């Protein structure tokens, strides 16, 4: 190789290295831009919301618009809180979990036990489709099924049905994925001892995969806790603490939506969102921790 050709090759390598470093830099910059919204959003929520968070906020129901306006005019913090939203969210999420978790886990076990069978494949595909259905459509469905036919009016039951349909496919898939990771030998050991099938499920499969199941369940709960759209069509909202499942009920996201539509309540928008975010992100992080520690 003569000197000129060598120089071209060195120059070429320089250009290529430069290009390589440029692309790496670009990817780092774009990645940082990608995660900047989470920092900005959390900053905004804390900056605007923290001043309203106190015991009263958790224990009382919201003020009416006039009370809020008076407080604002006097420079006070807005009185009252979102107790009706907290209890409503809790009520609906507990009911939704009671419907979705047993069915979801058992269906997940069915998929795990019958790999490759027609019905299992069909169920798996259908649950994938169900997972992709927009939450507002689930609200419409629960409106037709529960509001129109069962409770004859907006109700906590209708809200929880919509949330349960939303949770169901998430739990089915996470159960199946968890069980797939359990070594076959553990299950076979139990079967070889002559243990009945239901006991294998209850005493071997579920305990062994418990942390995985819990992760899926917590993620599902954290997802539905923040849902607003389906509840607008089903639970509607209420100004009082309601524990009657056939009556309209509030929820934290529904209250955020109401506060958002009332210019006097703007401070409450931020504090309720902050509280909702704290709950949702805590559930998220706990479930990730469980998943990480069981690996």
């Amino acid at each position, binding site marked *: 190789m003569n000197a000129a050709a060598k120089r071209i090759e060195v120059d070429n390598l320089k250009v*290529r*290295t430069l*290009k*390589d470093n440029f*692309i790496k830099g670009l*990817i*780092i910059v*774009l*990645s940082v*831009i*990608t*995660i900047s*919204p*989470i*920092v*900005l*959003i959390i900053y905004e*929520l804390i900056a605007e919301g923290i001043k309203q968070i106190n015991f009263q906020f958790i224990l009382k129901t919201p003020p009416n618009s006039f009370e809020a306006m008076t407080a604002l005019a006097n420079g006070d913090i807005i009185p009252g809180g979102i107790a009706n939203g907290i209890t409503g969210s809790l009520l609906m999420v507990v009911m939704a979990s009671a419907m979705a978790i047993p*069915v979801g886990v*058992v*269906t997940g076990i*069915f998929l795990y*036990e019958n790999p490759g069978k027609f*019905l299992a494949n069909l*169920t798996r595909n*259908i649950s*994938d*489709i*169900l997972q*992709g*259905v*927009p*939450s*507002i*459509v689930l*609200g*419409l*469905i629960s409106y*037709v099924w529960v509001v129109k036919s069962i409770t004859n009016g907006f109700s906590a039951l209708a809200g929880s049905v919509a949330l349960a*349909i939303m949770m*169901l496919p998430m739990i*089915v898939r996470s159960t199946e994925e968890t069980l797939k990771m359990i070594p076959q030998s553990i299950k076979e050991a139990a079967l070889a001892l002559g243990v*009945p*099938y*239901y006991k294998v499920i209850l005493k071997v499969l579920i305990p062994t995969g418990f942390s995985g199941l819990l992760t899926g369940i917590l993620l599902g709960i*954290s*997802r539905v806790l*923040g*849902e*607003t759209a389906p509840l*607008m*069509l089903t639970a509607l909202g209420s100004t009082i603490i309601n524990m009657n499942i056939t009556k309209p009920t509030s929820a934290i*996201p529904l209250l955020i*939506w109401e506060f*958002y539509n009332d210019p006097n309540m703007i401070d409450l*928008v*931020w504090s309720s*969102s902050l509280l909702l*975010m704290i709950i949702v992100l805590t559930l*998220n992080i706990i479930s990730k921790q469980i998943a990480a520690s069981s690996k």
Partner: protein
Amino acid sequence: MNSDKITKWVLLLSSFIILFVTGGMIFSLINGSIPAFKNFGFGFIFSNNWNPTEGKEIYGALPFISGTLITSVAALIISLPLSFSASLFLGEYFRGTKMAKVLGTMVDLLAGIPSIVYGLWGFYVLRPFLIDLGIPNQGFGIFTASIILAVMIIPYATSLSTEIIMMVPNELKEAAYSLGATKSEVIINVIVPSARSGIIASYILSFGRALGETMAVTMLIGNANVIPNGLFSTGNTMASVIANQFGEADGLKLSSLMAIGLLLFLITGIINGIGKFIIKKMA
């Protein structure tokens, strides 16, 4: 009957519940939208009239279908360079490092933020910023909604395509490195071509997510029942028109909203089906 048989039956029955729920859903949506389709025919899909005045009621879904598609496509385009960079960061450049763990966790947290909080942030923080940049209509419209939608689908697109990128066999990459390729050349010539269909599928699935988002879009799109005539025009999507108009709806209007719900169900179902099909073919 022994206990094993009973257990098998219980498992079988529970799987029927999910089929039953989905089947019932399709039935109820079709059943609810029959009056709308009877009244307006299939012209309902292609009509841009939306007039709830009693006696002169006429409804059409075209403004909402077009609004949904335009915002979702715009969101996909905005999110593409960001989420693709993040997935290369996580799956290739800093794979397995502490930095990747931090970035990955933050991307996951983005997925945990409720839609309504995104909407609030868009309304109170992003919108004033866009007004300062000279965006018309008080900062409401397709563009603003698309930015927020893009941020909302980034975590899905990122985590799916990171997984796909990590699946590219090491031998392929090592072969290219041993020939003297730089990292970016390996990405462009080895990783992207061999992971192409999976990456496309992950963006199709995120597109499906964007189609159905409701609250954040409702708060930012301007809720005008017209076909958007540009990126900065106001508009409405299928999900947000249901959320907006549902409160005072009965009769023909309710049926029209159900019909829009049915169309939304079908569109997202088809898009998700295509995405899942490509992923399954790869595996």
